[in-house]
């Protein structure tokens, strides 16, 4: 109870900030408890990794220098600054785990049909957050400017560049010229630490606010039960404590990865060197990368590129619009078909990702 912690301080703050209503809400709020409750924690896990990234990101800013000396500054963080390698390793691993957790969160809410009315905007804001997270990942990947970062960014930017007419123009603007240079680093840096956070954080607050407003959605199997049989636990302290414990487990997974596999820093990027044969984008872009490559192989020339982009974008648009064509439980048979659509999307993502890695040329040590 906060009163016992310092009643005077609390009442002083309460009078000025109006804490009581918030506290009452938190104490009254309940979280449904059923056999699928496990999936409720994944949004929180994603949030935890985001918080870790904010903290470690700010710490990296203390020593990182965008522009010509970017590589040297990361090298300094890695080899001279105390625990610099640890901060950087946590930042990079946290980024990957955040995207992974966001995918789990997205698919679990999809299959639990949490996007249905009145939660459409939760789905759309979540969709926006994941898209921004991927741009975060892409822009952050270039910043150390080692050879992998350089060539992966080069390959990554070739995806928008294949768009007819506007593609090359967009790619040039993003790069700040026809090649990846110090200009590109500065642009990506501004994107990574100013523009993206400025878009991400308000959207995140909207997302979290909507969760509070609508509460957790319950899966159909629970909705069919009479109200009296549905179980729930108090949000505070029960759910909060469990959430905290889950965060601690997540932190340990992060610590394990960060110390057992410290994020590597390759040799400085050399634009004149030949690209490594097995160059490929990060795993969360692998599926789109492979789909474009596959269509390019099936239909040579511009047609293939166009079809690849069309196929991929059609999938993304359908995915985003799912609350509109599966709006509520009355969907019935149609709702089950949408679930199958989810399985197909999941299968395509997994298969094309594995396929993408499988066809990478083996590189001799």
């Amino acid at each position, binding site marked *: 109870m906060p009163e016992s912690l310092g009643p005077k301080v609390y009442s002083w703050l309460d009078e000025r900030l109006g804490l009581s209503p918030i506290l009452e809400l938190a104490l009254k709020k309940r979280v449904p408890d059923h056999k699928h409750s496990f999936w409720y924690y994944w949004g929180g896990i994603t949030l935890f990794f985001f918080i870790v990234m904010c903290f470690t990101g700010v710490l990296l800013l*203390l020593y990182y220098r965008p522009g010509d000396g970017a590589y040297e500054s990361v090298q300094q963080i890695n*080899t001279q600054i105390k625990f*610099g390698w640890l901060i950087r390793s946590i930042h990079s691993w946290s980024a990957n785990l955040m995207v992974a957790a966001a995918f789990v969160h997205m698919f679990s809410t999809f299959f639990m049909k949490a996007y249905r009315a009145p939660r459409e905007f939760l789905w759309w804001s979540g969709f926006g957050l994941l898209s921004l997270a991927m741009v975060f990942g892409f822009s952050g990947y270039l910043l150390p400017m080692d050879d992998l970062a350089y060539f992966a960014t080069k390959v990554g930017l070739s995806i928008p560049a294949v768009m007819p007419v506007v593609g090359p123009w967009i790619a040039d603007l993003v790069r700040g010229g026809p090649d990846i240079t110090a200009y590109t680093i500065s642009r990506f840096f501004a994107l990574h630490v100013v523009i993206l956070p400025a878009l991400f954080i308000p959207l995140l607050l909207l997302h979290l606010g909507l969760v509070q407003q609508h509460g957790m959605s319950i899966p159909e199997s629970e909705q069919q039960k009479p109200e*009296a*049989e549905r*179980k729930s636990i*108090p949000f505070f302290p029960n759910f909060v404590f469990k959430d905290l414990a889950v965060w601690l487990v997540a932190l340990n997974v992060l610590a394990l990865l960060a110390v057992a596999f410290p994020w590597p820093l390759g040799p400085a990027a050399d634009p004149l060197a030949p690209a490594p044969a097995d160059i490929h984008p990060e795993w969360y872009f692998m599926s789109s990368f492979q789909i474009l490559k596959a269509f390019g192989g099936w239909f040579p020339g511009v047609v293939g590129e166009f079809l690849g982009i069309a196929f991929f974008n059609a999938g993304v648009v359908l995915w985003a619009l799912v609350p509109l064509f599966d709006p509520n439980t009355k969907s019935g048979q149609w709702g089950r078909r949408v679930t199958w659509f989810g399985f197909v999307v999941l299968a395509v993502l997994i298969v094309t990702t594995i396929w993408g890695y499988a066809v990478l040329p083996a590189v001799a040590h």
Partner: protein
Amino acid sequence: MSENQNTSGSTEQGASSERRTFLKVAACGVGAAWAGMVGYPIYRYIASPVEEAASADVVTEVEVEKGAELPKNAALMFKFGTKPAMLIHHDDDTWSAFLAVCTHLGCTPAYQPEEKRIFCPCHSGVYDAHSGANVAGPPPKPLPQFKVAVADGKVVVSRA
């Protein structure tokens, strides 16, 4: 509406006020230990340049023992403060001294009299024996160079 038993209820039942106090102290202790654990690496990270500057200030000049006896085209390892350093007597009777910490991954490089170069065996990095410039291999920067003063049979190495 059936609910799971509320925890605060179940702890209250058997808990004396003593136990509650202990629990509070323990919780605060765990929290403090935790904050310290997370804070320590962050503090070291932020304070890194301060520590670096402090350790750099300690030693500015070192007299190399038996330095003057060093024959031509040979090198001698000595300690500059806490770090290994290298004194080289060149064929033309000039002298060089470097911090012997490879700028790549911190191994200790060695002078090779046959090739007249400084070589780091860890990843085959090569430095110029006169200037310390990184001429081949993975080292990203030259070796930091010291000033060498030879007088009265004494070799004194100081921060450049």
